[in-house]
């Protein structure tokens, strides 16, 4: 591998950051994306020794790659075995851990250095701004998660929520959960109070929770006959899937029931897919589309610096649009580890992005959803 010097890296970082910062407005062409992806792959190949061995084993020469699609996906399970870094591990700023729902003894670890965290933070900021807070500078965020610094370990979603609260949350935003002895306890009483307050004052809120936390909340409200009519502009973000921790609802069911219980319009109910192994999170297009008056199916659009494809589970080859397979993410913001991650999430390509269906059966449930052991509405 030749030509990977500090100038190569400086220019590459600059280009990717430019795509993250300004990609939505000015657009990133397919050939620009391709060029950056190949350069990033070449950099990671040169700097990430385990990746290098893997690529050599596959008989691939990074100099001969002409399309990002030729870059093989690293299976997510590798994160459970070894550090995959483009830097000495001891220089990691963050060590994000997967939830290890099925096998707590074997969690995946994503080490990210200071440079990588800069990409990570910018990506978290820009994507949330674009898809969840496009119409507001700041608003009241009700996060059904503990403050990130109280988590016993680095969890990317908790840290991400922390970033949102810091950047988009007004002073009166609140974390409504804390780390308890048996998991994470949500202060349901306070949550209800705040929702009532929002109804009264007319100040819209952004509720951020895990998908199963959301279902628990709805069930609890139903049980005690609670309903809200939150002010216009209120919104909900749910992420992480169900992990077998609540009954599973289709998105349609979840959002129509959310609307019924909180008054938040379906389009303002946004599902989030975040992977510990990635830097970039994926949002439903609904809130943005609704603001732009665009009618489109609900799905997760690619960002200017990402591509998500579905591959055939047997051949690992890319499937045509609409065909269900295993999702593979190409994420240029995953600058300091590996840019292509092969997940065992089921999904399909649609529009200019993709949709996730869920975790494959036979695999272990996972995701970056907060590790709520239970969602308790504490009725003290």
């Amino acid at each position: 591998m030749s030509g990977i010097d500090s100038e190569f890296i400086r220019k590459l970082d600059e280009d990717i950051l430019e795509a993250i910062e300004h990609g939505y407005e000015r657009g990133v062409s397919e050939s620009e994306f391709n060029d950056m992806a190949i350069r990033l792959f070449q950099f990671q190949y040169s700097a990430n020794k385990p990746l290098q061995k893997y690529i050599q084993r596959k008989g691939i020469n990074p100099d001969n790659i002409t399309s990002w699609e030729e870059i093989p996906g690293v299976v997510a399970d590798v994160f459970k075995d070894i550090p995959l870094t483009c830097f000495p591990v001891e220089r990691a700023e963050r060590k994000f851990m997967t939830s290890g729902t099925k096998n707590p003894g074997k969690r995946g670890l994503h080490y990210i250095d200071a440079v990588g965290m800069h990409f990570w933070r910018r990506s978290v900021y820009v994507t949330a701004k674009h898809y969840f807070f496009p119409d507001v500078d700041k608003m009241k965020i009700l996060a059904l998660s503990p403050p990130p610094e109280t988590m016993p370990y680095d969890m990317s979603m908790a840290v991400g929520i922390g970033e949102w609260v810091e950047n988009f949350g007004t002073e009166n935003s609140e974390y409504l959960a804390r780390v308890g002895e048996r998991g994470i306890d949500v202060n349901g009483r306070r949550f209800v109070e705040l929702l009532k307050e929002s109804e009264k004052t007319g100040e819209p809120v952004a509720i951020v929770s895990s998908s199963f936390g959301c279902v628990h909340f709805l069930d609890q409200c139903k049980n005690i006959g609670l309903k809200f009519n939150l002010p216009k502009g209120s919104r909900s973000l749910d992420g992480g899937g169900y992990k077998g921790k609540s009954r599973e609802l289709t998105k349609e069911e979840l959002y129509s029931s959310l609307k019924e219980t909180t008054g938040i319009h379906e389009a303002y109910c946004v599902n989030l897919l975040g992977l510990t192994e990635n830097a970039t999170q994926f949002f439903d297009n609904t809130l943005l589309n609704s603001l732009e008056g665009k009618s489109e199916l609900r799905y997760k659009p690619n960002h200017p610096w990402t591509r998500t494809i579905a591959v055939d589970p047997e051949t690992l080859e890319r499937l045509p649009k609409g065909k269900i397979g295993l999702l593979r993410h190409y994420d240029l913001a995953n600058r300091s580890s590996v840019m292509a991650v092969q997940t065992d999430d089921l999904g399909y390509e649609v529009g200019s992005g993709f949709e996730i269906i869920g975790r494959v059966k036979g695999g272990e449930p996972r995701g970056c959803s907060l590790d709520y052991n239970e969602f308790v509405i504490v009725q003290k």
Partner: protein
Amino acid sequence: MVSTLKYTFDAFFLPGISESEVKYEEVVYGDKEEVSVRVPIMTPEVLKKVIISVKESRKQNLSKRSVGEIVEVLDQVGSNWEDRNYELRKKALAVLPKITRFSPQMIEVSINGVLEMFKRKDNKSNLTRMLWAELDNDPKCLDEFIPKRGCDYLVRAYGPEFIVNIFSGNVPALPIVSLTRGLLVKSAQLGKVASEEPYFANLFVKSIRDVDEEIANSIALTYWKGGDESVENVAFAEADVVVAYGGVKTIESIKKRIPHKTKLIPYGHKMSFGVIGKEYLIDESTAREVAELAALDTSLYDQQGCLSPQLWYVEKNGNISPEKFAEFLAEEMEKVNQKLPRGKINVGKSSEIQQLRGTYEFKDNVKIFCSQRSTDWTVIYDEKEEFEPSCSYRFVRVKPVDDVSEVRGLVMPIAEYLQTIGVALYEDRLLRFSDEMGRIGATNIRQVGKMGVPGVGIPHDGSYGLRDLITRWVSIER
């Protein structure tokens, strides 16, 4: 959803019950949902009636037959199945691949395998051999008092009145073995079929009916959801013996719920593996031959059987290295896959295999051999010695050991689950190794290439399956 069902088959056999007495549900199988199977929605009331019926039938018929007559009937059943034009055989070959996802070739091999039990060799029925081996006496002891071999008394064996079989669905032939044992000890039987494969047992019982309806009527087959206590409690309360196949959880749950007087014969989760000694790695052609046999063992039942090898321990210091052996094994896995294709697997399993392969691609001291553009088979050569169970579906590890004597320590963590060990070892080492394995828990040591085809009359999970059914041995001394 628009129904495109082409065929519906009945996966039950309920003598003494009319169609209209039971409600049914359909279970759909196949990628295009082209096959559906009708199973009864069993209620405690109907099940009670079924049990009365099979018990009555046993009393009137089966219990009055001599074991010789029963063997003759089963021999005839077996020879009917041998006929390629036999209607039920054709049905099995057409339908089972859709239900089980085994390839048609694999289904045929497993049917032929189970039919071995009913074959005659040197003019003697394998069933009779099996009975001799199990009872260690002339099988006539099931009919009358006869002299006990080598002793000075008369003996007679009494089978249980009623057996409940809880089947598992991983290997299609298993129910046949159980039902046959039950018939030979003249018991009325109830079989609970598995949702993964509810059908073959039913065909088998119908094939008995083709030969002898009276005998067939002592067997009932039905389905209920495993753990459905209202139904299971009725079955267990009536049972003298419960024979249960299944995982640790299933067996534990049954153990808790059967009455004190009822005997449980559990065939729980088991693990098998293989060992190749350096004496079979003396040259390439010998090593290739052994690899061919090992590939067959690994591929049979798509590695889902309790007797399927999870991995192969291969001795170093032969002329052919363990790594080379892994390569030969891989070549043979491909050949077997041509002849005996692996069945279709669900996307979860494909993904699991892809994730596993993908993690191995990051490991040192490993070599990966695998089918191209599919997950059909995978051979991992891994220098890490420790025992690792496979994810099945033809994913197998080859691990080097200095000497087979090391294997004992390596498999110790799974000793309680050990069952079959496929071996390629010379006689003197074979006996020593078998002794070591027998001491810690293995129950069947079998030559490589035959792991999947247990011989006639051998012990089953460390005991004799038919003998265990016997309720009482009674002696007369004069």
